[in-house]
């Protein structure tokens, strides 16, 4: 009996995957555990492994197609097995409303007598850019064929040019004159591009829209004087610098962000009521009946990666030394950029930090990353070492007073840096 290969759920939050690449071809001999294909999920690119032995008989998943978890993507058959012509794999979809993609996807079948693989229909790799027709603005522009071609070649907008030809027609000389006078480049309209969303962008869009719409945010702003922290950090880094040159030195250099992670973790430890999450009760329900008090202080830190962002987690940050946090964060950020984070490294977390200080942002307000109840937005310290912090808070979990105490505690730790070093 042929074995249907379905889109696996490769992470707890994955609802659909995009087929990035077929590693095996139709007709290839497959052993259980072989990588069949690569799938892009909302978090990372992951491998789809075969769970059975056999021959890859049929591929129904097109490259670039977004297929729900449980949708059929391929068929395996036994070595000498013959599969009925027209056999189509059946999916096990979470929702029956999702139609089987096989009916739409291009199908390539290798005839049993012809084991040589037929090429899979390849859809252009993402991102797919759709060029919509250029919408002509206003009245018809009268221009000679040569003028039109020159305008297109030189990126000149015909609408901005006065024609000198018969009946005001734009002629080639007008394009050249307009270019020479430098006026032609004033208005350049280019066609809009429609860029297909990557699974990650879809996830970001869905989660942040839901968060901003359903979580009752409020915002608290406070400044922290980092003068002492900066002095201590310089001293610390100088010391670590000499240590790093010794054999076995780990190249650790403490960043301001590492210290903010630690300060936040200690503050959350001090205010466990704030280290909590709204428990929605049901998957879609907004009317929850409980709040989850996190057992650990796990700090999620937003890391910008190509095409989006991800929030790797420094688990039990309240218990870790700043140097350990620093090393761990460095590794997590590198893995995040390389797309190598494992789900356990970015799922969960009790509190988030988003730092745009390195971009010169003075202060901003962040959107809470549910189910977490707070996120700290960090700006850039000014010349006087004053750092502006904005705490976005889920009012269902944390009231104003508690939020204020939490932010005051964070600022307090930042202003008493020696405690950051010993306070664990």
């Amino acid at each position, binding site marked *: 009996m042929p074995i249907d290969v379905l889109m696996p759920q490769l992470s707890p939050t994955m609802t659909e995957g995009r087929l990035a690449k077929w590693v095996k071809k139709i007709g290839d001999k497959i052993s259980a555990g072989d990588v069949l294909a690569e799938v892009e999920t909302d978090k990372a690119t992951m491998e789809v492994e075969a769970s059975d032995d056999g021959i890859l008989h049929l591929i129904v998943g097109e490259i670039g197609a977004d297929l729900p978890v449980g949708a059929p993507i391929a068929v395996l058959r036994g070595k000498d097995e013959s599969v009925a012509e027209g056999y189509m794999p059946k999916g096990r979809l979470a929702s029956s409303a999702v139609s089987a993609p096989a009916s739409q996807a291009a199908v390539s079948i290798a005839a049993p007598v012809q084991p040589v693989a037929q090429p899979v229909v390849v859809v252009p790799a993402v991102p797919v850019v759709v060029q919509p027709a250029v919408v002509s603005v206003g009245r018809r522009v009268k221009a*000679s*064929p*040569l*003028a039109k*071609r*020159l305008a297109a*070649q030189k990126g000149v907008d015909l609408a901005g040019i006065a024609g*000198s*030809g*018969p009946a005001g027609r734009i*002629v*080639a000389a007008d394009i050249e004159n307009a270019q020479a006078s430098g006026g032609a480049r004033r208005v350049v309209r280019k066609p809009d591009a429609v860029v297909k969303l990557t699974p990650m962008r879809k996830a970001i869009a869905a989660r942040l829209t839901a968060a901003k719409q359903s979580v009752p945010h409020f915002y608290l702003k406070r400044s922290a004087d980092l003068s002492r922290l900066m002095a201590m950090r310089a001293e610390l880094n100088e010391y670590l610098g000499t240590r790093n040159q010794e054999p076995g030195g780990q190249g650790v250099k403490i960043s301001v962000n590492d210290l903010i992670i630690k300060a936040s973790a200690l503050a959350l430890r001090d205010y466990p009521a704030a280290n909590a999450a709204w428990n929605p009760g049901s998957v879609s329900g907004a009317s929850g009946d409980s709040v989850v008090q996190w057992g650990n202080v796990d700090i999620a830190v937003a890391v910008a990666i190509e095409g989006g962002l991800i929030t790797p987690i420094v688990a039990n940050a309240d218990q870790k030394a700043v140097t350990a946090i620093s090393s761990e964060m460095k590794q997590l950020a590198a893995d995040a950029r390389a797309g190598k984070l494992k789900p356990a490294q970015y799922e969960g977390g009790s509190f988030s930090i988003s730092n745009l200080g390195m971009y010169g942002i003075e202060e901003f307000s962040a959107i809470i990353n549910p189910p977490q109840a707070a996120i700290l937005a960090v700006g850039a310290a000014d010349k006087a070492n004053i750092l502006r912090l904005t705490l976005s808070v889920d009012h269902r979990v944390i009231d104003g007073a508690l939020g204020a105490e939490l932010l005051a505690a964070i600022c307090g730790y930042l202003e008493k840096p020696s405690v950051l070093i010993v306070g664990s």
Partner: protein
Amino acid sequence: MDVRKFDVVVIGGGPGGYVCAIRAAQLGFKVAVIEREALGGVCLNWGCIPTKALLRAAEIRRLVAHADEFGLKVEDKGFDFAKVIARSREVAGKLSKGVEFLMKKNKIEVLRGEAAFSGDKELEVRGVGKVAFDYAVIATGARAKQIKGVLEADGKLIWTAREAMVPPEMPASLLVVGGGAIGVEFASFYAALGCKVTLVEAQGRIVPAEDEEISALLKKELEKAGIEIVVGAKVESLGSQEPGARNQDVSVVINGEKRRFARAILAIGVVGNVEGLNLPAPKMGHSGKAEGGVVVEKAAIVVDDFYRTASPHIYAIGDVAGAPWLAHVASHEGVIAAEHMAFVAKKAGHLPHPLRYDNIPGCTYCMPQVASTGLTEAVAVAAGRKIKVGRYAYQANGKALALGEPTGMVKVIFDAATGELLGAHILGAEATEMISTFVLGRSVEAVEADFIHACLPHPTLSEMMGEAVLSAEGRVINA
């Protein structure tokens, strides 16, 4: 005597003057044309039209010579030269009458006589009297160029084009000095009627304004037709008065070699008729520079884009305003001048569009014909253009073979980057008719795609234009 007053007075009733007069009348001006000879000018009376009538006789004779190839039994019993000439005159006369009719139709007064300026806004027309004007248009044309003491016509043995089209008899041998359009046409005509013709050209090739490839092909064809061609020729001692020689022929030294011909034609260019007009002289202005008047340089009146002379109410058009000396250019200039006057005087219409001198077709009605517009290949390359060249031979065209005209080619030059048609050059039957399509294409700034997308009729010679364009794109079908 009363001074007659007109809004616009046009001096000269040639293809520039009469067309200008009609356009001015259409625009509501009261117009007079002053003409000392026949309406229609050189073009109609002594140039384009009568020579085409002569060449038609030569073409028919050539067809008769090939009649057998078509399975026709036609005997060539020679020709009645006087009748050939008479027909040419008849055609010219008919057209001149036609212009007279056009003048009446447009209520344009024709004043017969020679004109000279007699005041700021006044002309004296000999035999007519004084004529006042708001605007004057000098359209007095040009005449054959001669070089005093070197290349001079005597009207009997050494002709200009004017005498060459009304010869009393067929000369036994003929020297044509000048390998431009006029010289080549006369050489072709006389050779076709059996005259022994020698064509000499001072430059390195005949029809030197044409594309080099076309020029070389034409030379080959004219030589096949029995014409002796000498290029790079230095002509000296052209004369009919050699001591001791019979007074009935022409002696000449060509490249140091003494030659004799029954007759000679001077076709070395034309020179503007600027004399006798008493043109107003420029005056010294306040700035110390000459101002106003009518300025003449190298026998041509200096004009601006709208053919105004240094005096804004005096215009000059056509041959008298300089090259290119072509009837169709003169007519266009006349229309633009008239429209400009209307715009200035009546605020009527709009400022006319200046004529594009880079898209003037040149036509030579020899056998085979030559026609072109735009840049030659060499000029395009010299101008730094990256070009694509397409060629198509007549011998690959069905209609050309059916007509028995397998000689010739269509050559097109495109800008490789923009697809602009830079130039088109045709040699062969009906080349002068076909070139119009390319002129129109250049006029509307068509690119190669426009020519390719046009469905041209079959079977025609015109198809070759499409094929030549395809050839430039490396996708010719029928070759």
